[in-house]
């Protein structure tokens, strides 16, 4: 298999085309603009539609339309743009439409800056818009994983009829690493017999809608969605544990932060500290199983994020008071060094 050196944003775009994405609607914003730029060039040549919408709101509603017609569709943006898309994401979840949404996070709140951040964790994992819903959230930490997770994102979206969010950050989007675009066996996916593609002799009229004026019906609908979310929580948790075998302490980090934390864990290992790394790959469903796996031997956890503490709440909900949970984060586009995290690991050991 040929290895190519690619930027995260471009590799993600190429993977989307290979995963069968037929439509892309978006609006440019740093630090993800290479993604739509790549698709603007490639989609028309390869049988797809690229459209730069007049706004993020327009783009997400175009996604709603294409998804309703049963085609694989994607949009991408960065933090402020993703906030604008929230109304549409809520509608997509209500109408159970599969699609892939990419957020290459930058510093916030407001317009913030264009540097890497992880401060949209709450928004991504708690629904983000209005209503009782969840989106599946995937958090790659290398360019190769970005590529692999794009295929999974489209499959998961189709399998559960639900939007899937890929949560990256400015560094992951901008950095280059070698990637291999592996051929993947096609997954058995449910037929899209709900899509509004014309009746073609069919008796039943397909309707894509999120409006249920009768509260009895809406509760039924929400309970049905909830059942789906429970199934996803049971089946789709993903994580990686590094240096975990004899570990007594654990650092928990995702995305680019997990890479820096991994370097810090290696420093601590050289210093004789038995520390491992839990790297959540799905942020929703949160990989609680990882914590069950290590809790019998874990003395303490240290969560490291590019925020002032968001995922740490899920760590606490997973640990359920069975071990202390500490936190270290940088924010506003600042990125911690491995040395800084190493110092926090030493503090954790001193405290517990």
């Amino acid at each position, binding site marked *: 298999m040929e*290895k190519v*050196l690619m930027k995260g944003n471009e590799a993600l775009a190429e993977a989307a085309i290979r995963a069968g994405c037929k439509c892309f609607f978006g609006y440019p914003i740093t*630090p993800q603009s290479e993604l739509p730029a790549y698709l603007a060039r490639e989609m028309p040549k390869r049988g797809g539609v690229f459209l730069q919408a007049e706004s993020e709101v327009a783009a997400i509603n175009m996604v709603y339309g294409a998804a309703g017609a049963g085609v694989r569709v994607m949009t991408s943006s960065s933090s402020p743009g993703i906030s604008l898309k929230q109304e549409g994401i809520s509608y997509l979840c209500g109408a159970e439409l599969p699609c892939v949404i990419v957020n290459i996070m930058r510093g916030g709140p407001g317009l913030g800056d264009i540097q890497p951040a992880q401060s949209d964790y709450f928004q991504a994992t708690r629904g983000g818009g209005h209503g009782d819903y969840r989106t599946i959230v995937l958090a790659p930490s290398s360019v190769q994983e970005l590529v692999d997770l794009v295929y999974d994102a489209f499959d998961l979206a189709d399998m559960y009829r639900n939007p899937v969010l890929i949560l990256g950050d*400015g*560094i992951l989007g901008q950095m*280059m690493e070698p990637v291999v675009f592996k051929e993947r066996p096609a997954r058995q996916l449910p037929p899209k017999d709900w899509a509004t593609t014309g009746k073609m002799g069919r008796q039943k009229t397909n309707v894509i809608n999120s409006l249920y004026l009768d509260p009895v019906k809406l509760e039924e609908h929400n309970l049905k969605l909830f059942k789906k979310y429970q199934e996803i929580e049971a089946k789709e948790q993903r994580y990686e544990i590094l240096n975990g075998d004899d570990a007594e302490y654990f650092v928990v980090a995702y995305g*680019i932060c997990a890479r*820096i934390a991994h370097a810090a864990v290696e420093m601590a290992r050289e210093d004789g500290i038995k520390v491992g790394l839990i790297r959540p790959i799905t942020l929703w469903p949160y990989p609680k199983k990882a914590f069950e796996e290590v809790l019998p031997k874990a003395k303490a956890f240290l969560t490291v994020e590019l925020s002032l503490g968001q995922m740490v709440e899920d760590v606490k909900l997973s640990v359920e008071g069975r071990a202390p949970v500490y936190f270290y984060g940088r924010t506003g586009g600042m*990125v911690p060094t491995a040395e800084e995290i190493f110092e926090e690991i030493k503090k954790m050991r001193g405290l517990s």
Partner: protein
Amino acid sequence: MKMEIIMAGFGGQGIMLMGEILAHSAMLEGREVSWIPSYGPEMRGGTANCMVVISDKRIPSPIISSPDVLVAMNKPSMEKFTPMVKSGGIVILNKALIDERPARDNIKVIEVDATGIADELGNMRVANMVALGVLIGETGIVKPETVIKSIDYFLPAHRKNMMEINEKALKRGIAEVQK
């Protein structure tokens, strides 16, 4: 083996490409690599830089806090990054645009007139390849033939006429440290 490199200079000096070519060559030689550009507002007028990590193993962090090697193509870059260089590390300076030496004695400083040599070869824009030649000549991190393959990979079809001068620039850089 693991080597962390920061390359920095003005926008337009081909800093990003120099890093991409190095990372690409190391990939061709079977190494793990990562490359991160600076993409912030500092790119306007100040220093543009990129970080390259080359390793035999999975690279934990692609972010560099203390590089083994710094290539500084202008003075602001030297001032900004020299303090970060590991003790025993290497600093390659583009003498043409840097009239000072860094105030550190625990690093190896290599001064090379990259811009001047490039100008002499007929195109100032290949100064980056002179500096890259110095880097690989000094460290042996990748073979010159692999770098030449990578230059060819990055040059678009309508710029293949630039192949020869880039190759010459690379070799002049290597010769600077091997004379």
